[in-house]
């Protein structure tokens, strides 16, 4: 699964720390998601989408290998 959290974050002008605080997770989690090293839980994906006022599927995408 891929995501465009980094892009969305840049549009909103948020740092990793800001986003981490908004969805109450550690900065490591945001870091790992942006590096595509961690697939978030559904709850966290929904929370992130809400911060960016978008649908989950506008932020997270399936890849061919999924």
């Amino acid at each position: 699964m891929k995501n465009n959290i980094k892009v969305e974050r840049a549009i909103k002008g948020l740092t990793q720390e800001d986003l981490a605080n908004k969805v109450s997770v550690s900065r490591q989690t945001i870091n790992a998601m942006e590096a595509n090293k961690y697939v978030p839980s559904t709850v966290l994906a929904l929370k992130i989408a809400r911060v960016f006022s978008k649908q989950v599927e506008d932020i997270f995408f399936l890849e061919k290998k999924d």
Partner: protein
Amino acid sequence: MLLLRLLPHRFKIIGWLILIPASFAGVLLSFSGFQANWLYARVFAIFPGDIFGFTRPFSFIRTNITDTVVGILCIGGAMLVAFSREKKEDEYIASIRFSSLLWAVCINYFFLLLAFLFVYGTSFLTVMVYNMFTVLILFITRFNYLLFKHAKPVPDEK
């Protein structure tokens, strides 16, 4: 998210304060065989384990407890460090916690396997002594390494 039940974060610091001196003491003890004269006590032993003669199981014996104290401090300290929450314990931290534990158990048994193959006689007892602590030590090392690795600031942060 359902997370592991862990101790509060402050226990991690307490754990380090116990673990570091205790492990130094432990390594020193294993080399020197030192026993503190003032550390004799009457203890309840399920297996007194005296090599000479018959000893009754489930009896009180008087013995030196230097090893006992240091061993308990090592395990206690390591447990506190290993099973305390991070400042912000979340789903990703929980996932690296699990993967580190799996990694630690695998590596530990791999080394134990090598020890079975290549260490014989009384030297194997030394291996067993260290092996009592290595799972926890490997886990703590791996988990904290991964936390540290992912905590590094990202260079293209804008």
